[in-house]
């Protein structure tokens, strides 16, 4: 069916060409990183993870959000989602792929990537993350592809597909839980060392993921004349709103625990992020923007008259995505490293190379998503 992604109009090919150009930039930058080492990034001895891991964390959430469609559709027979379940599954595929590419980009020795499987270490969360991410990617790809193939042929999907889909539901929760455990199990990094990290990750994932799905439906309606329907969007908006509320609630509990207990180590990272520590707080404006944008967006999504307005809905979704992207994609990682084990505050500014690689990976993910959705929509709108 992939041949359907090789046929398209001028707009489609222009978009693909743009993505390919960005991918080219990314590949060039990555080649530079490969030759010179990760030193070409802004990461260093103290902030040893940066944009790559941040994007990875954010995208795991996007991947997991497919479950917000799969679960209601397959377990609760929510017919409103019939047209976009596949969009969710393919979004999960491309997000999971990007996750793995970001991990690969972050590795000092990508040539040894197979060591994770050749020397499996169950005590390491990375090992589990590789398993669940790969598993999730293939679960979604295979089940989505099989359902689509059956639809194209006009026959019922094979019985085994159903079981893969059921399996993908707990699996979606597992990917983000394991990703949270990557961080939450590390001693001495107090921002991460919290039991609420996994629930918070899930809440933010379901908020940002559904927002992205809503935005995708608008894009598809516009560029592909494929409308998932207002009912689907409304249902997603409600799901996203409550997830957003939960996310804000978890953030609040973090603040309470840290500041009411008054344990310095627990407060430091939050102080650094939201108020500045020792006079240093480069992220303060961003974090506040994130917080306020998050609150407003969730407010809009919660209000039926507001979310019914297309413009408002789009604005709220963008706001929610940006808010969570800053919170998870910027604050979480950098905040976790600051202050350092030696109580120092270290700045981290991603370099051009690093940003190019990041854009390149995003472009790969978007290209894969574009092609998958092109296939899906061609099949879904096929005349016969």
């Amino acid at each position, binding site marked *: 069916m992939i041949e359907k992604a090789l046929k398209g109009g001028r707009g489609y090919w222009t978009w693909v060409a743009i993505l390919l150009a960005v991918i080219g930039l990314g590949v060039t930058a990555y080649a530079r990183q490969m030759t010179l080492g990760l030193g070409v990034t802004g990461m260093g001895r103290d902030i040893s993870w940066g944009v790559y891991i941040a994007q990875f964390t954010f995208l795991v959430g996007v991947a997991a959000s497919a479950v917000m469609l799969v679960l209601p559709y397959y377990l609760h027979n929510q017919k409103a989602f019939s047209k976009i379940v596949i969009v969710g599954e393919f979004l999960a595929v491309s997000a999971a792929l990007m996750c793995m590419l970001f991990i690969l980009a972050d590795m000092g020795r990508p040539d040894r990537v197979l060591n994770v499987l050749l020397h499996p270490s169950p005590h390491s969360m990375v090992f589990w993350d590789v398993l669940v991410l790969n598993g999730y990617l293939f679960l979604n790809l295979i089940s989505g592809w099989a359902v689509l193939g059956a639809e194209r042929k*006009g026959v019922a999907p094979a019985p085994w597909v159903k079981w893969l889909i059921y399996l993908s539901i707990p699996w979606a929760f597992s990917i983000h839980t394991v990703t949270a455990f990557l961080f939450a199990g590390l001693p001495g990094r107090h921002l991460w060392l919290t039991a609420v990290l996994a629930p918070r990750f899930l809440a933010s994932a379901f908020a940002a993921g559904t927002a992205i799905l809503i935005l995708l439906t608008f894009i598809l309606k516009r560029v592909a004349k494929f409308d998932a329907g207002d009912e689907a969007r409304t249902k997603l908006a409600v799901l996203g709103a409550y997830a957003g509320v939960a996310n804000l609630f978890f953030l609040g509990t973090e603040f309470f625990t840290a500041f009411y207990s008054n344990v310095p180590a627990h407060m430091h990272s939050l102080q650094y992020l939201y108020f500045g520590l020792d006079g240093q707080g480069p992220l303060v404006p961003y974090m506040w923007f994130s917080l306020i944008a998050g609150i407003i967006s969730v407010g809009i999504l919660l209000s039926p008259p507001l979310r019914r307005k297309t413009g408002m809905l789009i604005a709220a979704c963008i706001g929610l995505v940006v808010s969570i992207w800053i919170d998870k994609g910027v604050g979480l990682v950098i905040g976790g490293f600051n202050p350092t084990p030696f109580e120092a505050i270290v700045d981290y500014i991603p370099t051009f190379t690093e940003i190019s690689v990041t854009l390149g990976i995003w472009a790969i993910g978007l290209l894969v998503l574009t092609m998958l959705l092109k296939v899906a929509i061609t099949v879904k709108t*096929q*005349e*016969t």
Partner: protein
Amino acid sequence: MSKYAPKTEELKKEFEEKKPRLLKGKFDGMDWWDIPVEFRDGNWCFPAKPEVLDELHFPNPRKWAATDKDWQLPANWEKTIRDGMKDRLKRFRSFKVFMDSCVRCGACADKCHFFLGTGDPKNMPVMRAELVRSIYRQDVNAFARVLTKFSGSRKLTPEVIKEWHMYFHQCTECRRCSVFCPMGIDTAEITMMARELLNLIGVNNNWILAPVANCNRTGNHLGIEPHTFEQNIMSLVDDIEEVTGVRVNPTFNRKGAEILFITPSGDVFGDPGVYTMMGYLLLFHHIGLDYTISTYASEGGNFGTFTSNEMMKKLNAKMYHEAKRLGVKWILGGECGHMWRVVHQYMATMNGPADFLQEPVSPITGTKFTNAKATKMVHIAEFTADLIKHNKLKLDPKRNDHLRTTFHDSCNVARGMGMFEEPRYILNKVCNVFHEMPENTIREQTFCCGSGSGLNAEEFMDIRMRGGFPRASAVAHVREKHKVDSLVTICAIDRASLTPLMRYWNPGVSVYGLHELVGNALIMDGEKKRTEDLRENDMAGFEEDDDE
């Protein structure tokens, strides 16, 4: 239904029982050459009558049947086959390369409509070619002669000839397998060679050779003599007048006409082809075309193609010969499948150069048909599409609202010529309801009607209905999904063969020629109020009492 075909329900049951398998029967542990060849009612065509062979000066005229034990092959038949094969390997690089380069990857296996319909393993295109290759290997490769089973080679025996006869007459040369072959191997080419070889020893098919003889003598397959030919068309002219109130004026054998129009004789005599003919006549009248019809070159089809290269050339030669005699500028060809394969791929090479003609130019729009520069023959669909594009036709597509159409690409026009868009363009302009069949069954992947290449015989009905099953299944799909009831084609054999096929598998679906729909939609000058289509069926929304 024909006594030569099982009842539809029986055949359906056969499919239900074997699904999801495609193969019929158990073959585990078997080699293909051990599977016996079995002739029974419905799976073989009657051999050519001795008088037909005599007329054509073809060898070994005799009375025989495929079910006979002894086929009365001529003395020395093995040598005839071997020499014939060597000769053709020398003359056709295609044959040689196709014999040498198959890797048996199996991509073609489930592409053949006869395989899909019969489940007979030897109907997999690769197997069909192996029937010849196994003999070819004996001749070219010393190792193969010794290691027969290892290399898949075998001795030439009467059994092999029977097998060839069976399976090279269960191939309609439709080239669908060739589309998928990574080596570009074209089974049609191999079938052509095999049929030539079989004809050398008098193993043949009356349904092919009788039309060949007729065509040679009278100019058309049915053996219609000139006066009858003219009368038939004139009776269509009467019918047109009855339906439209307009009297069209075709001319015959007229010297000095601008254009010579040639269409398969099926359009002149066969139902539903005649309605397509009426469509042409209306169209030509509508635009005031200066054209003539020949009673001598009165056949577009060319069953020589299914006989031998030489016979193809011989029958085809009449077209240029007549065009030259009449002094026309160029030739316009009607809707036909294999006629167009011959015209497109062979005519200029065989009987050209046609320097006595001019590069075709539409007298109505002035469009130069540069793609027909050498052959000087234009396809009616190209011609009409050009007219519509230039707004030269007054069309009312609503007049076809009583039809819900789908379009069947004819194999030869699709895969032997590459015409896909023009007929669709016309169809979309002359009717309002058009739905494509599933994508793997149209355009270059179109399925044959199951009766092409001279296999349209009544006594062959069993295989025809099976071979047509993939096409029928695709029609059934759009029938269910879009209530399609009209199957439009641009091939005379399709019109003749899809009709019983639809009756068998999809009752209620009728077969139409493209230009019949054009004829329905044309708003003619001076026409009477149209309430019926060319078949005298009521049109939707044009009832008598429907005053405006």
